[in-house]
Every structure is written in C-alpha cells, then in structure tokens.
C-alpha cells in the first residue's frame, strides 16, 4: 500500500516543496524543508511544538510568503499562482475558524456560496448529517461545544470537494469518539482520492491514517517514509530489547533525540 511520491509527466505531485525557507525576525523556522506528497495519499507531518508545522501549512495555503525555496500544489506555485492554488486546496487551521454569530447551517452555506457550488443549502444539510450536527444545525456556532465547533470547522473545509486538504492538528481537543469520527472522514476522503496533509501531536493518529510520515525537526525533514520504513530506522541496539513492534512514538523520540 505504499504510494510512491514520484511525479509522472501527467501527474505532478499533489504537494511539492523544495528547500523551503522561512524566518520570523532572526528566528529561522524552516531551513530547507523538502516534502513530496503523491495525489490521493495521506501524509502526516510530525514535529514537536514550535517545529514549524503550522508555518509550513500556512505557506502551502498561500497565507504566508516563503523567504526562499519553492512550494507547489498540483503543479501550481504558491507564490506566483496563489489563485490556482486556492482553487485546489482547503485549510482546516490549527485553531477553529467558524463564524460564531451564524448557525452551523449558515456557516456551511456561506462557504458553499463562496466556492460557487451548485446547491449550497443541500450540501450544508449533507455535511451536518455527516458530522452529527443535524440537530444543532440551526443553532448559532457560539453555543457549540469545542468538539462540535471543530467538526463544523472540518465540515466547512470539505464543502466544494477540494482536491488537497490541509488539516493542522485536526483532532486536538476532541474526545475519543469525535476523534474516531474525524479519522473515519479522513479515510473516506482518501478513498475518494483527496490528498491530505495533516499535522498531529498524536503519533497514533499518524500510525492510523498516514500512507507516509515526515518528521520535521530543526527546520528540515529529518526522516520520511512509510511507517514500516520508519520502523526499520530504529537503531538496532534498541530493537534488541524492544520485543513488541516499536511504536511510532518510540521512533519519533529516537530520531528527534539523535538529531538534536
């Protein structure tokens, strides 16, 4: 089930990042980030707090200009063709961004209208049902619980069937049930061919969902591969006394530890 992140002449990678640089003042956050995500695959970006995951996602979703390097979505450069990029992508940011004054239904209709889809109201109903928000659909988002807001937030990102989806810590703050619901959605979307780049602090989430995993550390990707490939990287000395299959958490701590 490994998807090779290799571009064919007809299919550029869904996401291609080469040597991306970004600093805030003299704080170098991204120092040559490389990332390739094949169309239709789920890619997890792991990293400690402050590693630059959100910064990378913001550059890919045209919200932030890189200082150097290149990033392209479906072959369109984020810096020179931002309009084309925005047609292809959708962003669920790290912090929920719903309109509190509007109802859940109105929030979804708003996005549908802005994406010029055929029947925004019907799509809104479908999304509410899919995320278990039908009952709450006519209530203002301000009255929702944190989990409901996050589900609405993700639902809003799916309106208009974007081909590339960025999920920045999509399940942070969700209860286990809601988390499993989001995981189910991610798998469904992947099955339909949506490309997904997700960041997460929950390593189990990456294990569960991702075709490939990248670990961002010190401004660069220090390890990239399938879960199996990452497991093979674990220092043999360690493997000897770890009898069970190593968890991604152990791999993460091991590679991040040896890189710093």
């Amino acid at each position: 089930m490994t998807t090779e992140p290799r571009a064919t002449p007809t299919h550029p990678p869904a996401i291609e990042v080469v040597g991306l640089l970004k600093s805030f003042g003299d704080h170098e956050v991204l120092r040559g980030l490389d990332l390739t995500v094949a169309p239709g695959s789920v890619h997890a970006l792991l990293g400690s707090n402050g590693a630059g995951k959100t910064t990378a996602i913001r550059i890919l979703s045209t919200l932030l200009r890189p200082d150097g390097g290149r990033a392209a979505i479906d072959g369109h450069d984020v810096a020179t063709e931002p309009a084309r990029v925005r047609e292809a992508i959708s962003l669920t940011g790290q912090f929920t961004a719903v309109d509190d004054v509007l109802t859940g239904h109105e929030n979804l209709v708003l996005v549908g209208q802005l994406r010029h889809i055929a029947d925004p109201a019907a799509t809104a109903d479908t999304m509410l049902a899919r995320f278990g928000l039908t009952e709450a659909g006519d209530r203002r988002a301000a009255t929702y619980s944190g989990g409901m807001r996050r589900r609405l937030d993700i639902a809003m990102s799916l309106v208009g069937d974007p081909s590339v989806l960025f999920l920045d810590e999509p399940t942070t703050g969700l209860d286990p049930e809601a988390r499993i619901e989001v995981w189910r959605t991610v798998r469904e979307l992947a099955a339909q061919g949506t490309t997904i780049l997700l960041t997460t602090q929950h390593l189990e989430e990456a294990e569960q969902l991702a075709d490939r995993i990248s670990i961002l550390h010190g401004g660069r990707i220090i390890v990239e591969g399938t879960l199996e490939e990452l497991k093979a990287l674990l220092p043999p000395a360690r493997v000897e006394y770890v009898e069970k299959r190593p968890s991604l958490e152990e791999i993460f701590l091991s590679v991040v530890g040896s890189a710093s």
Partner: protein
Amino acid sequence: MSTVLTDTVVLTRRSLRHVLRSPDTIITTAITPIAMLLLFVYVFGSAIDTGDGPGEAYVDYLLPGILLITVASGVAYTSYRLFLDLQSGFLDRLRSMPIARSAVLWAHVLTSLVANLVSLALVVLVAVAMGFRSGAGLLAWLGVLGIMVVFTLALTWLAVVAGLTAKSTDGAGGFAYPLLFLPFLSSAFVTTDGMPGPVRWFAEHQPVTSIVDTLRRLYAEEPLGDDVWTALAWCVGLLVLAYALAMRSYRRRTSG
C-alpha cells in the same frame, strides 16, 4: 455577475446578519447622538444664539453636527468586527479560499454604510419629532445623502485601518473617540464667531465646519457658496487617503 460582485454580496449578507443579530449596535450608535440632541436642544439650546432668525429652531442648526457624530460613533463597530475576523482566524479561512480579496474588506465597508444609514434615519426621525422641519426638495436631500455617504465611507475606511492594526478589541474601537470631539471645535453646536482667535481659526479650517455648514444650507434651501466644494474636497480627500491606508494595512497584516 463577476465573482468579485457575487463574493462581496455573499460576504456583505454575512456581516449584515451580524448587525441584525445584535441590533443593539444600531441602537447604541443612535442613542448617544439622540441624547446629545435632547441635551443641547432642551438644556443648552435656550442659551445658545446661533444668529438665525427667531423662526429658526436650534434643532435645525444642530442636526448636521449630530449626524456626523452618529457616523463617527457608528464606524467603530466595523473596526471591531474586522478585528474579530482577524483574531478568530476567520479571515485566514477566507484568504485561503478562491475568492476576490477585495470582497472581504468591501463587505465590511458596505455593511457599515447600511448600518450607519439606518442609525442616521433614526436620528433624523427623533429630530423631526423634536420639531426639525425642512422644506428642501428631493435634490437637496439627495445632496445631504450623498455627502453623508461619502463621509461614512471615508470614516469606515479609517475604521478598517484601525481594525487591521489593532492589538486588542478595545484598541479597535478606540480610534473613534478623537473623531467625536472634532464637532465641538466646529460650527456644529455654536457659530464660530464667538470663539477665541486660534480656536476659531482651527474651527473654520477643519473639515467638520464646512461639511456641517453645507448640510445646513442644503436643507435650509440657502445658496451653497464655496463651502460645498471645501466640504466635498475634505470628504473625498479623506476617503482616498483612508482607502490607501486601509489597503496598505491589509497588505501588511496579511503578508508574513
């Protein structure tokens, strides 16, 4: 319709909903000017000599200044709503979507225009109840409306600058307070004749006086004179400047 227009319409409907769901913003906007109207007409009015004939009511003299104050207090809500969009990440959501970028700001500006016109209508209604009368024709009233629209747009774009550069919700609305004082140093409440030299010079050369005088002449059906050009120059000049500043703040705030 082009997508700029449809996107602007969609987003304007959204923020008009915000206004409709907190109608107190319109009431609050109208209530201070109405209180001033009452206070000045019924408490200070008898002591103020505006040099008009005995038939002229003070409320007629006062109304234009009160209208400007209404707008100056009303535009603060635009700063506030824009600041919330920035803070909540909603603006980022919009910016990552394939929509015309100018639509985002124009939606807030058009909403401000509508909300302020409603507040202005409320204030005029109260003035009428207090005895304000005008025999001015449609054309003169369209002139009044036109000046108020340009003035509102100018102050709203200033409010956009405030909203985009604010660090807190209080800061977002605070820019309007100085604007509320300008009418006191103008011909809005009393004629400038009795003011001491430097104050009088300031009063006669600041925008409020020419705008207020022009509005007054429009509905009193008096010849407009040169004041109308001064007033228009101030309004349009302010509008152009505020718009340019707003665009610059937007670029600054959204480029990292």
